[in-house]
């Protein structure tokens, strides 16, 4: 029981990761692939933050009356990763827009078909 309570968090994170992974490898629609990548990304964030949590700890901002703080380092890494993540997502979406303009579709297999027929 204690083992489950101590680890359920990681298992849900792995489940989420795998859902994202599944969307990326099994679906052909490029927008959906990006959504899948984002799910994967968010689940990695949750994994990092789970590791930073300390029992009975609080937010790492000094305040009177609190002594145990959670680990600030993963917070910093993830904080910047989120903003970088949105920047890369925007780049990927821009590429999708250009692909649509060039191929007229955002379905992966249709794009492949066109490439072969050329």
């Amino acid at each position, binding site marked *: 029981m204690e083992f489950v309570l101590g680890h359920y968090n990681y298992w849900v994170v792995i489940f989420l990761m795998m859902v994202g992974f599944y969307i990326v490898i099994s679906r052909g629609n490029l927008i959906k692939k990006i959504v899948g990548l984002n799910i994967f990304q968010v689940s990695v964030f949750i994994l990092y933050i789970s590791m930073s949590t300390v029992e009975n700890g609080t937010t790492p901002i000094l305040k009177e009356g609190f002594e145990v703080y959670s680990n600030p380092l993963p917070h910093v890494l993830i904080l910047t990763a989120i*903003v970088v993540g949105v*920047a890369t997502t925007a780049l990927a979406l821009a590429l999708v827009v250009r692909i649509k303009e060039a191929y007229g579709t955002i379905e992966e297999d249709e794009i492949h078909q066109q490439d072969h027929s050329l």
Partner: protein
Amino acid sequence: MHNLILRVVSKVLIPLIILFGLYVQFHGEFGPGGGFQAGVIFSAAIILYALVFGLEPAEKIIPKSILHLLASFGLVLYAGVGFVTIMLGGNYLEYGLLGSDQVSGQLIGILLIELGVGITVASVMLIFFFSFAGRGRP
């Protein structure tokens, strides 16, 4: 979104959002917040304006050339703080030299680089929005 209620409510909200964004920017040292968050909130205010009043008026508030300039200015500000500390005889980004003592120098340094981060993030987010929304305009 031509509708009147939305216009009146947005008029009330937008200045509050901008002020709140700036509050988050400058209180990153004391509470949750900082340049990354503030930049995003600030750009959200302008995105709301664009959604309610139209894209063209929103693009007039911050002209494109200035927006592009600001995006690089933030990064230059950040990197520049590092060079200033080198000029003062220390290492790159050694904030302690900026003030009279270690702690006050750190405060100035952190304030400046957070400002750089905020400016870059806000302008890049707006560049994203304007590029996507403006694409396909006749």
